[in-house]
Structure formats: C-alpha cells, structure tokens
C-alpha cells in the first residue's frame, strides 16, 4: 500500500477539557490529524465550505447548540461513508442506542471513557473508511477496464462484421 496521508478526525464537544484530553492522548499515541470544534454549528459550516476530506467524526451528545445525533445526521448528508462516533453520558444511553439504529452511527463511547477503547474504536472506524475507499477505487478500476474491454469489443465488431 502506498504511503498514506495521516487520517483526519473531526471532534466536536462543547467542553474544551474533553477536547484537550482526547487531543493530547491521540497526539502521543497516533499521527492522526485532529480538527476540533466546541461549536457543532461552526463545525458544520466548515464541513460544508472548507473541509475537503475527513476520515472519522466524533461528537458529544449533549451540547447547547444542537445535540450530537442531529449533528452527526448532518455530517452524514455531506460525507455518507464516514464513520460517525457519539460520545455520551449514561443518562442518554437509550437515546444513543436508538440513534445508532436510526441515524446509522458507527459506535458510541460512554463518558468517562477508557483511552485504549477510544483508540480501538477510532482505529477500526478508520480501517473501515480505508477499506471503503479501496473498494471505491477497485470499483472505479473495474469500471475503467470494463469500458476498455467494451471499446475493444466494439472495435472488433467494427473490423470483423
């Protein structure tokens, strides 16, 4: 496999302390590039305008501007294949599980989380993204070869018939 760009992870939590914790942990253990937001609205705005590509999105559930499930549903519209992870407290666990089914979340993490679990969930999510990207590429290749073949076939038919 070719040398890859560091994966891009978008993290939204209205609590600066959570962002700092996760950012610091990922900084010492991974090469992931982190885009962090305390405002889900600002994150959505940037996703629609500035951000070209993102490999995984993590969002808090309870935020004053909008809840994490609505935010991740918006993200899905722009990047349907990107795994979406919800960070949640216990009190809204049932909501989170509902959302996993309704909005199609990849995973949810309960606060307070375990760093190893967090890393594993992110790694697996990213692998899924990579596999999907590879699959897309293969499909494109196959389509390309298919087109070439049908061009050759047309040529053959044109010459012999």
């Amino acid at each position, binding site marked *: 496999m070719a040398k890859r760009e560091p994966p891009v992870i978008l993290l939204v939590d209205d*609590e600066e*302390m*959570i962002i*700092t*914790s*996760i950012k*610091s*942990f990922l900084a*010492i*253990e991974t090469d992931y590039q982190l885009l962090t937001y305390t405002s889900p609205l600002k994150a959505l705005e940037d996703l629609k305008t500035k951000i070209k590509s993102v490999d995984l999105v993590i969002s808090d559930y*309870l935020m004053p501007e909008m809840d994490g499930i609505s935010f991740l549903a918006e993200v899905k519209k722009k990047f349907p294949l990107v795994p979406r992870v919800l960070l949640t*407290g*216990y*009190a*809204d*666990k*049932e909501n989170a599980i509902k959302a996993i089914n309704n909005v199609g979340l990849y995973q949810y993490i309960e*606060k*307070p*989380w*375990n*760093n190893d679990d*967090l890393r594993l969930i992110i790694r697996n999510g990213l692998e899924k993204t990579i596999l999907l990207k590879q699959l897309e590429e293969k499909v494109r290749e196959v389509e390309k070869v298919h087109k070439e073949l049908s061009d050759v076939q047309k040529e053959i038919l044109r010459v012999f018939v």
Partner: protein
Amino acid sequence: MLENQSLPPALSEELPEVLPIAMLKLDGKGKVLFMNRASYELLAAMKISPENLSQALTQRHRFLVRQALRARLSAETDWVQNGRSVHLIFKASADGASAYLFMIDLTAQADAKAQLIQSEKMASLGLLVAGLAHEINTPLGAIHSNNDTITRSLEKILQLLEGEDLLNREDKKRVEQLVGILRDVCQNTSLATERLMSIVGSLKNFARIDEADFKKADIHEGIDSTLTIVQHQLKGRIQVEKQYGNLPPVECHPNRLNQVFMNLLINAAQAIPDSGTITIRTARKGDSVTIAISDTGTGIDAEDLPKIFDPGFTTKGVGVGTGLGLSICYKIIEEHNGKIDVESDNQGTTFTITLPVSHGGRPKKVKRG
C-alpha cells in the same frame, strides 16, 4: 323507587348500628351517652376506651363541642391519634342539650397521600442523582484520560532516556527518580478516578431514570449499586456478607427494586446497635428468585411484627423514620407480583423477598403512589 315503600319500623334503632361511620352522642362535658358499633371499632383502633374519650379529646375539641351546643350548629376538625387520621364533625342535637359526634376514618387517604409524597421525593432524588452523575462524568472523563496520557508520556520519556546519552549520569539518575515519583502519583490518581467512576456508575445504576418500564435486569447489580449508596451508614461498623446464588435476569422495575433494597439495608444497619453483620442471600427457586437480607440486630418485638408494613408505623424516634419505608417496600414488591416476608427474634431480623422471574410479558400495571 323508595317513595311508596314503608320505612322499617326499627330504623331509628337500626340505622346507627349499620352506619359505617362512627357516631356518638356526648353530653356538654364530652361524656359519652351513646355510641354505635363503628365507634367501638374506630376507638379501639385509636387505642381509646369510651370512658376516656372526654379526656382524650383535646381542649380544642371540647371547645368545639361547647360551641356547637351554644350556637346549635356544627363544627368540624381533624384528629390524629395513634396513627389514625380522623375527621370529626360535632353537631348539636335538636334540643341543644347534647352533641352528636361523627368520626370519619381518613387514615387510608392520608397514608396514600404520604406515600405519594414519599414516592415523588424518591423520584426527584433519582433525577437529581442521575443529573449529578452525568455532570460529574465530563470532568471525571477528562481527568481519567489525562492521567492515562501522562502515564504514557512518562513511559516514552523513560524510553528516550534509555536510548540516548541526552544527559550526564547524575542528571539522568535524577530525572529517572522524578519520573518514578510521577509514575507512582499517576497510579494513585488512576486508583482514585477508578473509585470515583465506580461510585458514579453506582449512582447512575441506582437511579436508572432512563428505564420507565419493566425490563430484565441483574438483581445483583442492583444490590451492589445500592450497597455503594448506603456504604457510609455501614462503614467500619457493619460487615456485609454476600451469598449470591445463580440468578437469571429478572423482569422488574430496577430503580423501584433498588428503593426496596435501600430501605431494607438502612433498616438492617439501624437495627444493629454497635457492630454486626448484614447477610444478603439470593437464590433461584423454580420460576422465582428470593432475596434475603438478614441483620444481627436487636430484632423486632413480636407484638410489632404484624404492623411493620402498615403505613405510618415506626419504632424509630421522631425525625429518624418516616414510618413509610416498609409500607413502600411492600407496595413495590406487590407491584412486582412478589411477596415480602419477615422473621425476627432477639438474634436479628430477616426480610425475604420473593419475585417471579418473568410476568409472561404482562407486568402488573404500576401505579405510582
């Protein structure tokens, strides 16, 4: 229609006896001239002998009797005596020489109201606890994660020191020493946050506000989280021995059941004067499970035993017990189609709860309050 039927000839004699309301005739001093059958029953429940009624009535009652007689009117008031809430109506007789006293027993209604208030209190306490636990989780999550990150960073620093000659030997030794201290401190913080996390987890598990319906739950998890909540009442003084059997998940209202466990555990702790043991045994018996909570306390007096599930009954001092704990336990277990039994002697008390494992998909309707 009754209009054309003749009245029974002995109505004036029969009516007071069949009347389900206590009816008495008193003279101006409050002495009983006549009382019907319902009066005997109610006065017995209030532990008042008819001869002593006039003494038992308060000054205010006697004032109302005189007032009713003087004005030939009626007067009403409430009376709480020996756990009975009674509504009193004084009415002057036609000749104004004596007063009729009607006593309506409102104990059941008063108890229902008190239970409702207690349930509401528990419900709001549950909400408060769950909200607090949720709020604590954000900073706790940050601390827990940061501590892990610091520990990991320290290990990386140590690895760097191993590889390269970045420092002279003395400095290296000093740095290693400092890193060693930091590592110990981090380990300590990690233990502390883990303890906090388990307490918060128990609080959330205890409150379980997200679960409004009957659902399959682990009874042991409920008991364990309740034990964490009542821990401070036991600490150092009371040993808790768990003899857990193999229980299947039980279809129940987890936070309501936790209330029962809490009440029984607090009662058990209060029954033990100095130090002692609370033993919790669980077992499966066919389609039911049993949970037995025993204490090595002073026991319940034999004469009190039949009354302990009555609302308002308490042997604890004023301000210690509401007298509602066990009546609420009884009600909650009833909602679960289960039963709660008690055995007691001077060696201690055992409460045994029996619960059906499932309700065949049709749980008994839960009525609040």
